[in-house]
């Protein structure tokens, strides 16, 4: 019944490169407030709402020695009372406005996300300001939220992904803040009090590390003063950022015993910083090797051909203070050794031979064609605009990015593959009871 299908598909493929990139173009404008705070704005008045995404660089990497988890706990407490509102009064005020706020701490940032109705935008902004600038950190709230974090940390003790990730970072970044998980450990979190949380607030939320994206039913004229109201009272500077570290991945394979039927494997080695000129070729290479889901070499070899896993993937993790190239999969304890062998072969093969012309063309078609999918919806656009800023990219990047992908050649990929992929240093943490897998440390 679908004779015409292939002809149709072929026609679309030919037309693709010419049509899609042009349609990605959107107008983003930088808006600087009277007080000197800059945000990237994309106006769209279709829906009476405003989305705001902000990032304070630094995040849990700013945790002082012995206080791992301080920035995370502080971030979780931002919505637990501020100014003259206690935790319940704050939550009720937010619900009365129907505003949505979220605050998240990661290794590299404290991220703030807000969605607000046009009809009460000013009041919503004032409440968000109170959370960021005047958090109370009441003893009751500190104890309660600390208990929630500790509960998560206890559960993590037998969670194979948490165990694997912690072990990997501990090995890759000895002596660096990245070695510890963003939410801390049971020992460090137990000691965090309101004073430690206040210090984390003072260290992490400052104007010298702030990036902002705003999308929706607002124009530049209104946004400028609003930025000052929201962020103007934060301190100018925060704590010094940590040094950039070179990952110490020595090519070991660790086995951590856990009574589970399927072994979880986290693997990786040094990656490439986001501002490296080879980042885009590396990104395309990763898509072909393991980043691209269905169609990637690793998914094809490990899942599709052999049914050894439900999912295997890789990703570039260009942290601000240390860059990794990482991946993850899980296979039944009796089959994980075979999957590990294939992974090692594919790593070496890509390092030696790079990609074929057909693979490169497929990857470009997908990556350039799919780029506009990241821009449908205010919240999605706001996330993209913030992501561009945190990556240190120019405001015009959104309209140039597909050209950068198109320009990648097989030679570029061969060069970055040789440079980044390092089978000797590829480091594994296996959690489970793997059969036929020899630990090397």
């Amino acid at each position, binding site marked *: 019944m*679908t004779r015409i299908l292939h002809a149709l598909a072929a026609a679309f493929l030919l037309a693709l490169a010419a049509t*899609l990139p042009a349609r990605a173009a959107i107008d983003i404008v930088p808006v600087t407030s009277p007080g000197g705070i800059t945000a990237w704005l994309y106006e769209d008045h279709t*829906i009476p709402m405003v989305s705001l995404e902000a990032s304070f660089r630094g995040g849990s990497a700013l945790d002082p020695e012995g206080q791992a988890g301080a920035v995370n706990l502080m971030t979780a407490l931002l919505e637990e009372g501020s100014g003259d509102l206690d935790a319940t009064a704050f939550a009720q005020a937010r619900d009365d406005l*129907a505003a949505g706020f979220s605050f998240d701490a990661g290794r590299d940032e404290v991220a703030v996300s807000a969605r607000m109705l046009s009809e009460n935008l000013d009041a919503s902004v004032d409440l968000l300001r109170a959370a960021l600038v005047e958090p109370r950190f009441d003893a009751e709230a500190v104890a309660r939220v600390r208990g929630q974090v500790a509960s998560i940390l206890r559960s993590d003790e037998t969670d194979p992904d948490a165990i694997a990730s912690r072990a990997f970072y501990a090995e890759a970044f000895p002596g660096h803040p990245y070695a510890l998980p963003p939410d801390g450990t049971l020992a460090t979190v137990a000691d965090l009090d309101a004073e430690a949380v206040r210090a984390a607030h003072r260290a992490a939320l400052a104007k010298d590390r702030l990036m902002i994206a705003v999308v929706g039913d607002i124009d530049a004229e209104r946004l400028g003063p609003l930025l000052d109201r929201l962020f103007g009272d934060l301190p100018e500077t925060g704590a010094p950022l940590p040094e950039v570290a070179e990952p110490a991945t020595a090519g070991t394979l660790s086995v951590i015993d856990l009574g589970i039927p399927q072994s979880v494997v986290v693997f990786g080695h040094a990656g490439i910083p986001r501002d490296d000129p080879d980042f885009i070729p590396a990104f395309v290479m990763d898509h072909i090797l393991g980043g691209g889901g269905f169609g990637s070499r690793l998914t094809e070899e490990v899942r599709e051909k052999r*049914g050894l896993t439900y999912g295997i993937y890789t990703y570039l993790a260009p942290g601000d203070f240390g860059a990794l190239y990482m991946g993850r999969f*899980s296979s039944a304890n009796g089959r994980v050794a075979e999957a590990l062998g294939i992974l090692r072969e594919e790593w070496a093969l890509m390092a030696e031979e790079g990609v074929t012309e057909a693979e490169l063309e497929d990857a470009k078609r997908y990556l350039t*064609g799919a780029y506009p999918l990241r821009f449908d919806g205010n919240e999605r656009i706001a996330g993209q605009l913030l992501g561009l800023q945190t990556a240190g990219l120019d405001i015009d990047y959104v309209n140039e990015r597909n050209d950068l992908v198109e320009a990648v050649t097989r030679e570029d990929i061969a060069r970055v593959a040789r440079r980044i992929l390092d089978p000797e240093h590829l480091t594994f943490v296996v959690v489970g009871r793997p059969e036929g897998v020899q630990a090397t440390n």
Partner: protein
Amino acid sequence: MRLAIALLLAAAGSAARAADGDIQSFTLPNGLQGVVIEDHRAPVVTQMVWYRVGSADETPGESGLAHFLEHLMFKATDELADGEFSKIVAANGGDDNAFTSTDYTAYFQRIAADRLDLVMGMEADRMTDLDPGAEAVLSERDVVMEERRQVVENDPGGLFAEERRAALYYNHPYGRPVIGWMHEMEQFDEEKAMAFYRAHYAPNNAILVVAGDVEAAEVERLAREHFGPIPASDAIGPRIRPQEPPHRAARRLEFRDPRVRQPYVTRSWFAPQRRPGDQREAAALYVLAELLGGPGITSVMAQELQLAEGVAIDAGASYADTGVDPQSFNVYVVPKPDVSLAEAEERLDALLARFVAEGPDPQQLERIKTRIRADRIFDRDNLQYRARQVGSELATGLTLEDVEAWPDLLQAVTPEEVRAAAQAVFRPENAVTSLMMAPETVEVVGQ
């Protein structure tokens, strides 16, 4: 939908043309139902094809087959080679995937709007022309068994959830896991999968949902072209599953696993779902879940268990409102380290009894309604969510009239209706109370 129409009237003074965000629909002569949500903000479209078949429609002994077939739908057809479906989508800059529940199986693509013709043609192709081959079937069986290990067996919470379902539904097939029991998954083969496919995949058992930068008339034209030639199947009948008998005994589970570091208690009550033309009790239960244990610390459970009395680290409620057959209302309490599960459960019992006696705080009810109203605006920003929402509603037997009536029904819920719904559902013999614990004697699980 009402809100979008109101906005259009305010903006343009005319309702002659459908507004962005409105739901438009058509039905083809072969029974395929089409739904279109236009949104012209970005040149992107989401296509979803929903089949009214899920794990509750499986034959006993073949648990997981509906989900397994979902995986096989990405294999070969008479036209496309194994994996080619997703490769063509990717080569056109699109993403695709699928998911399966107790009551439906859905396939979707997100792609540039001018590629709708292409992906619709491919969906029409695999509606009746799947031909995966025995080898691909066996290899994919290994994949879904790994999926079960990953999402269920590696996580004591996953195993615990399976036991709770099985106890809540002891006659209805909702008691079986969607992914399937491992010993039954091991027996899957091409013959079983294809028999299931032929029994359930047909235009008169499908709903096409298209959302994004498209015109409804053009979507209907494309649907006629691609799906129109596929004949209706006479194998599609009403969805009649074994129903639960009256539940007469309060049921209790103790689940112990050496991996459990954080004990908790849950309770699930058998509860009515949104029924076509009859959604009022469900609306009251929806509001009840928000009041009792919705997100944040303003809920009754958070206020009484986490703040004032301080026995819980976390507590919440949820209500599964959508399904072909009756669903469940659920609560959980995670006690503080120095609080026993028994004590946490006692506090929960006291709280529920008080709520049933006193009903909700009217001011808090108004807050919940404000949030629900605002979500209707925020939801317009997320087209995939809208498509998914309306698809799940239609695939479980609700009509577009029910879908459009639901927001107003939520706003009309009274305090007394909430109280009455709680009283009707919170009966001991209607409930399964489940304790998640570590073994009494410590076993070594590593670490």
